[in-house]
């Protein structure tokens, strides 16, 4: 298959060999699970359980609410200790509402929804409802509720379901292992999703540095002519949705549009497997494969981890630290988020837990920019990081926005390549945060203005009505102005407010 080039990118040290040959192992159930109500993009789920409740494995313990949300399920049977605020697996270290579950060791399944016997004759709704009910979110890291993405087929004509098995982040091997160990589950899930989306073709994109996965997946897909496995070049950030679409189809997703607008829906391979479980067995998403790696981990491994297990327990399972980690990262080293502590849970979007030493990170003090232009050369989005950072440094965020800072998806290529070790991505994260704040604030100001105007109009109307009523009652006192005392006015307003 003909591939298309993508702009820029880097070739970091992949270091996948630490875990790529380690078969997936199951982590024993820890003493407690911490299940946040929000592990996804969108609104937090509505809690369904209370302290002391006994729950079974797979039972829904928090229900999705609003349009973009995802449910949470008990990863094992046990007792709800409490529902409280717990530090989130997020760099801010802020707390979020979390259900704490004490496993009872029996691991008893709840009554699961019936498997959908023949998904290929089921309609889109049945499949999507099941996916939504199972709390499935994108497992590549962004954690966007999958059911919403599966609904796209109803709004748009879709051509390709693209499975993202690029796994371009260094260290991470969880998708690689899942593809090598469960190819048929992925293929089945993909066929079900393609059916729900109405896409005639399925393409599975895998980076060439995973030859076994490519071979195994190709073999598994050989029975289905509509499924094609494509080996894509090793080039970070190939796993970026838009770039993978460009590499495979040659088409460039316009800014502010979705790949679905081009007729292509992208899902991660592990997500596909979760869909298979939900449809064929009625099992919700309650565990995921996490790559635990990095120079500070004693026994790096690919671990099937129950959702809600604390990072500390997971690290303990992998032999603990062999050296003091400089950073513990949730996800890959390029786009992952640093963790504020080890007392935070593994969530549905956690693809890796990396304990990295200072040598591995190789960050050094920042020196002056020498305008070498490397960042411009490597930027896969065609931006000019050097100029954007100069604007952000002087707090000219408007200037940075004009140069496209909001188009940056923080892939980190510029920071990686910078010979002066300027924290370019950090500058852009800051700028994007402030610009989003300003946007929110100006939207709020707009709303406030409308509210104030509505109120003024309402009060005027009420006063008018009162005046009319007064005039009707006392036609004699026509000439005198209507009562303007505070009491009367307040009464009017009270009526208006009622």
């Amino acid at each position: 298959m003909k591939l298309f080039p993508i702009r820029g990118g880097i070739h970091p040290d992949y270091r996948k060999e630490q875990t790529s040959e380690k078969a997936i192992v199951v982590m024993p159930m820890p003493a407690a699970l911490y299940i946040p109500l929000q592990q996804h993009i969108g609104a937090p789920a509505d809690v369904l359980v209370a302290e002391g409740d006994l729950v079974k494995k797979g039972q829904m313990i928090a229900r999705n609410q609003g349009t973009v949300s995802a449910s949470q399920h008990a990863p094992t049977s046990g007792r709800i200790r409490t529902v409280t605020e717990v530090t989130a697996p997020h760099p801010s270290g802020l707390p979020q509402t979390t259900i704490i579950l004490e496993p009872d060791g029996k691991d008893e399944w709840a009554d699961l929804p019936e498997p959908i016997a023949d998904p290929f004759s089921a309609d889109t709704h049945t499949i999507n409802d099941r996916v939504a009910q199972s709390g499935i979110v994108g497992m590549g890291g962004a954690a966007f509720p999958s059911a919403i993405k599966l609904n796209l087929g109803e709004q748009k004509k879709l051509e390709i379901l693209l499975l993202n098995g690029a796994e371009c982040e260094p260290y991470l091997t969880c998708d690689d292992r899942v593809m090598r160990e469960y190819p048929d589950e992925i293929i089945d899930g993909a066929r079900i999703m393609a059916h729900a989306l109405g896409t005639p073709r399925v393409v599975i994109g895998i980076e060439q540095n995973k030859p076994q996965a490519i071979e195994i997946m190709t073999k598994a897909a050989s029975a289905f002519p509509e499924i094609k496995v494509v080996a894509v070049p090793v080039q970070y950030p190939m796993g970026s949705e838009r770039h993978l679409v460009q590499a495979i189809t040659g088409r460039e997703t316009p800014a502010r549009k979705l790949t679905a607008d081009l007729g292509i829906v992208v899902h991660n391979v592990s997500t596909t497997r979760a869909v298979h479980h939900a449809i064929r067995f009625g099992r919700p998403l309650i565990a995921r494969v996490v790559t635990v790696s990095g120079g500070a981990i004693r026994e790096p491994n690919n671990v099937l981890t129950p959702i809600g297990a604390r990072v500390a327990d997971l690290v303990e399972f992998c032999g603990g630290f062999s050296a003091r980690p400089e950073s513990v990262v949730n996800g890959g080293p390029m786009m992952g988020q640093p963790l504020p502590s080890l007392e935070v849970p593994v969530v549905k979007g956690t693809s890796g837990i990396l304990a990295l030493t200072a040598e591995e990170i190789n960050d050094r003090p920042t020196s002056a920019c020498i305008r070498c232009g490397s960042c411009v050369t490597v930027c896969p989005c065609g931006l000019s990081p050097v100029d954007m950072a100069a604007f952000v440094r002087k707090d000219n965020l408007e200037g940075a926005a004009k140069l496209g800072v909001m188009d940056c998806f923080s892939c980190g290529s510029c920071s990686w390549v910078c010979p002066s070790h300027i924290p370019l991505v950090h500058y852009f994260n800051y700028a994007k945060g402030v610009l989003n704040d300003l946007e929110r604030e100006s939207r709020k100001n707009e709303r406030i203005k409308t509210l104030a105007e509505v109120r003024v109009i309402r009060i005027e109307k009420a006063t008018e009505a009162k005046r009319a009523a007064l005039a009707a009652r006392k036609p004699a006192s026509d000439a005198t102005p209507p009562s303007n005392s505070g009491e009367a006015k307040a009464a009017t307003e009270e009526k208006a407010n009622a």
Partner: protein
Amino acid sequence: MLIAIGSLTIMGIVLGGLLGVAARFLAVEENPLEEELKELLPGSQCGQCGYVGCSQYAAALAKGEAPITLCPPGGKVVIEALAKKLGVTADLSEHEEKGPEHAFIVEDLCIGCTRCIRECSTDAIMGANKLMHTIIVDACHGCSKCVPVCPTDAIVMVPVRVTLRNWHWPKPEIEQTHSEPKVGHAH
């Protein structure tokens, strides 16, 4: 020498004349500035700027009588918008960004007198006579007009909470080996 002086003089006269003509014929109609400024203000007539309402503040701004940093509910966004419109540089050093705030009713103290409801210009307070009141945070823009009218001091201003949804990375602090001069600017 004479030629040089002469030609420069002629060039000066011609170019100066051109500029004068251009200023007359290409002049931009004066904008109804006051209206435009009013558009930029929150419009809730809270009066925290010291003027009666947003229109009056806009008028004062248009005349250049008022500084652009008087609108607390508008915050930095409004200051920057005003600065841009008026073509002045916003001196944010004087302006202490308090960070957004909203009103909060201590429910134990509220006696349900509805005075605050009458004061609120954005209908951000819910409640009725003899019933406890509460603030709709999304509609409250932190003008704090309701605080003084409360007979039981049940209303306090609290900062808008930083949550996982609105948290963002702070500006990076750079440990530098060299480059940045400690004083003055490079350009």
